[in-house]
């Protein structure tokens, strides 16, 4: 999987994070996300209709008068928010190098998090019901930096996620330290 020797390049030729080549997440992931988000807004819109037509309780005046405005707002949000998230999902990607794992995310605020394999405490695969159905998995990476700085690469094809996990677990840096 990797060579025994560490290529110790001189300092003026440092491996550069600028040259990282990111693999985008599979299109299925962003489509599923889009669908889930749209369903959520559809549900909210249906809920407003249900609220108006039900007869068990009387709505507060503020809500019943502004029902149309609320629906308009929700419809607008249903276009903008899932759209934004869809575009943001498109930008997500990961890059695996011999000694570290990077994850890029963000549309307006772009961030690249890099985790040296040597400093990984443990990795976890997480799969929700939708992810299980779609054959996807999230790879969670924990370092000693604490819960605040845990990052997850979502929407990986299961085989790929398992492959990365194996790469990390079998990495000689990790194996040595256990």
């Amino acid at each position, binding site marked *: 999987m990797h060579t025994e020797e560490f290529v110790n390049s001189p300092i003026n030729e*440092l491996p550069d994070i600028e040259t990282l080549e990111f693999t985008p997440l599979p299109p299925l992931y962003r489509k599923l996300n889009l669908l889930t988000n749209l369903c959520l807004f559809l549900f909210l819109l249906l809920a407003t209709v249900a609220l108006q037509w039900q007869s068990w309780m009387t709505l507060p005046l503020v809500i019943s008068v502004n029902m149309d405005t609320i629906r308009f707002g929700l419809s607008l949000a249903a276009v903008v928010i899932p759209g934004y998230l869809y575009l943001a999902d498109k930008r997500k990607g990961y890059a695996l190098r011999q000694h*570290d794992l990077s994850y890029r995310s963000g549309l307006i605020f772009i*961030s690249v998090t890099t985790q*040296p394999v040597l400093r990984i405490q443990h990795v976890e695969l997480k799969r929700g019901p939708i992810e299980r159905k779609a054959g996807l998995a999230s790879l969670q990476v924990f*370092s000693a*930096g604490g819960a*605040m*700085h845990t990052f997850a690469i979502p929407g990986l094809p299961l085989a790929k996620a398992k492959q990365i996990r194996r790469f990390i677990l079998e990495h000689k840096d990790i194996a040595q330290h256990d």
Partner: protein
Amino acid sequence: MTEPHDEQQLTIQQNQWQKLPLIAIVYFSFNLLRQIVGQFIYLIPALLIGYSTIIESLPEAIAGALILLGVVLGSSWLKFHFYRFRLSHDHIQIRSGVLSKKHLDLPFHRIHNVKLEQPLFYRPGNHTCVVLDTAGSSKDEAKIFALPMQQALSLKSAIVHFASQPAASNGAPENEAADPSVPVTEPQEVELNRRSLSDLVIHGVTSNRIWIFLGGLAPFFDNIFEWLSELLLSSGMDLKALLDPSQQSLWQYSMTLLTLVFMAMLLLTIFSVLGAIINFYGYRLSRLNDRYIRRSGLFTRHEVSMRRSRLQMLVRRQDWLDRLIGRINLKLEQFNANIEHGQMMMLNNKIIVPSIKADECDALLQDIYPENRLSEIDYQPVDRRFLWRHCLFALLLHAGIALLLAPEAMATLITGLSLLLVSTLIYLRWKRWGFAIDNNFIYIRKGLFGVDYYSFALSKIQQTRFAQSIWMKPYNLCSVTLILACGGQSIPFIRCQQGRQIINIGLFEVEAHKASWM
């Protein structure tokens, strides 16, 4: 109950299950009582209200209290009875638990911190509680609830000696650490710093920041009050009438107010000074080989020790008052496994050297990291767009408020002044921001009125983050966050090349040299 030879021997019996000294029952009882009080603290008001009922049924109340005491003592005795520990040359085993039994087997090499705690009631018999911290969760933490001081010290030196062996074979400069001829006899400890009572009073006063700030303003309170009330009066609000329903004159009122504020401030300052004395009384910082040891405490004497390799970050803090009188608070932060356990744990986990002078600080830094250049390195400023961006935010916010208050000329003026003040603060903040990097360390400077320096070894980096917004991109700017085991440090608004260079060098240092972070 205890084996009598326990007390006389200096070294601990190896490979033999041992009981704790009897005094441990007091420790267990005290802890249990504290827990019970902590659980039922919300009942105290009810008890106070029901005071008369309690007095009426005094015998029952006393009986209840006695039963409680009996239960506490009984369960403490059970805990004491079922607690056994055994030491071998490289690990400690602890068996405990009354109903659910626990068996802990802890190899010495997993212990990364040995703390000695001496509550007040352990002083007469010179006992101490030994806390063995591991890098894992708090569940793995082991406590030997009571040991005679001499035994505790020899156990500690045995663990410390064991732990320092691999470090010495890694080529660490401390050759004494590997010397096998110093197992139980204490190797010489070098005293690095000592804090006198007056230092602690200074620390108490300076760490009481907000009140001191108000205290500085106190002579002007009257003027400020006058000015404010005039201002409000001209915008249609009569402060005097509002604050003065009983028609007393304003000066009387403000004098009363002033006195009250002063009293409160004095009280808080006294509390702060008392807090500093309770925490840091008899402060001694010393070094044993590569291990730094802090001892302090008025009632419960705490001992925190940290190996140099466990040190994650140096923090040199100076608030404006500290700057004025030339004092520095130096903090040695280590791995923070108990970050979710709140402030108390964190306080006990790091070594703070309170209110030292600049030369003492330099001497300590020299001792800890001889190559560290925290005090003399040239700090590069962050880009001035940091200033523009934050000022723009403040401007938008103020413009919004001004629009809402549009007709009032005076309100607009106040908004303008507030904007000016905020912008000045942002400017000061920007001026303080600085960063530097050399072959071994990263240095960050920040602050507002005070100035704080942070420095950590490149090899301590756990994770890096390079962040850039679409508005930063055209100007080739970025923000960099470096995550350590004791939390993250960010440097905002620096050139992309600089940011990438920091990350590249950091990653290279970690990945190529594979230095351990603890």
